[in-house]
């Protein structure tokens, strides 16, 4: 089994004068399910975007390592799977086309067996050749999971993973999270008790707010 770790060193993020979090340190390694909690607007999504490398921290750094080797930012996307309500796939393409183009752009051969397994798990196999614009919001959310997991990433980042999902969708997601958490690192940013119940440990972002922020 390959080893993967994400380490945050003195992470600090502010938007203008508004401090989001400061002096944030953590180390997630090898496998497990980890939660990030905090009230709305506390910076959960900002933190996970920084971890995914799509946003930058104001100070401090995030270090991703795979088998002891530091991953350069240009290659980071190959190790990450990401699901969030603000992630959108291409409406004008079918589910299959979206996944196929994603593989081509990543320059990874489309693993048809894996994609078909995920399409079945998320109950989308029969709709795989329909345009995404005809999908309901719950179906789009399920497709995002397939998009995030198809390349078998070592770090799976989930922001509010069960939003828009019905009970069967939630069951599929929890099953996959538990499976993935055995071999990979799964980060869940959520306030849902059911989501957080899966986590081995949680990080409360409110603990990293500077008490002096209102006086700046």
């Amino acid at each position, binding site marked *: 089994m390959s080893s993967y770790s994400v380490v945050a060193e003195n992470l600090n993020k502010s938007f203008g004068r508004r401090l989001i979090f400061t002096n944030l340190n953590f180390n997630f390694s090898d496998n497990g399910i980890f939660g990030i909690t905090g009230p709305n607007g506390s910076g959960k999504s900002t933190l996970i975007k920084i971890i*995914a490398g*799509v*946003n*930058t921290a104001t100070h401090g750094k995030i270090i991703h390592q795979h088998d002891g080797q530091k991953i350069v*930012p*240009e*290659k980071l*996307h190959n190790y*990450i799977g*990401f699901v*969030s309500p*603000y*992630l*959108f*796939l*291409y*409406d*004008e*393409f079918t589910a299959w*086309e979206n996944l196929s*183009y*994603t593989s*081509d*752009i*990543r*320059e990874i051969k489309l693993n048809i067996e894996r994609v078909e397994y995920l399409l079945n798990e998320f109950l989308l196999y029969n709709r795989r050749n329909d345009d995404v614009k005809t999908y309901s919001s719950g179906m789009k959310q399920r497709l995002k999971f397939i*998009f995030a997991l198809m390349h078998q990433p070592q770090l799976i980042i989930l922001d509010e993973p069960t939003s828009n999902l019905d009970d069967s969708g939630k069951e599929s997601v929890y099953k996959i999270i538990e499976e993935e958490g055995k071999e990979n690192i799964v980060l869940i940013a959520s306030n849902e008790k059911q989501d957080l119940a899966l986590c081995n440990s949680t990080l409360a972002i409110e603990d990293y707010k500077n008490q002096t922020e209102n006086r700046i």
Partner: protein
Amino acid sequence: MKAYALFRKDLHSELRTRYAVNSLAMFIIVAISVILFSIGQEKINENLTAGLFWVVIFFSAMSGLARAFVSEEERGTALTLQLIAAPSTVFSGKLIFNIVLVFAMNTIISLLYAALFESFVIKNFPLFFTTFVLGNIGLAVSSTIIAAIIAKAGSKGTLYPVLSFPILLPLILTSVSLTLSSIDGTSFAESIFEIAIVACYDVIMISAAYMLFDFIWKD
């Protein structure tokens, strides 16, 4: 190959949505029609022909080339791209798409000009071809990087031509002069200085665009 895959994705998307092609085609038809109506039976001189030729090219580019990044931001798919490709791949893919679009657009404009304007007779074709190729590359590179900048801004439609104008001005002015020379029949050797300006412009813009894109693309 990754950039080519991104280009194929964009081309496929464009064929389905026709977002850029429709606006470009409409703009070219309207702009050339207005020029033809306004000049009536008059025979315009070569100076004006070369200038109007690049005016149509500039504004056509403004109406369609921003699509590369604006549509990704508007549809919320910019994050998707950030999660599957390195910044240099994204820029290369978008640049290939815009180069293809600019060449197609300007070929159509040139053919329409040749058919509809008596004074648009190219006497030095190699010079015109060189200007056409170098000018199109410069236009595509500048338009692509400016599109990436304005895609995150609020009033994209207004900002795009305003921001593009000063950056494209050296290219447009030199290209107008070279187009006039090719209509006049000026030799290639006499125009070498202006060709060097356009070639240098292309090299500078490509280098600057690749260096800056990382910063533009992340937050």
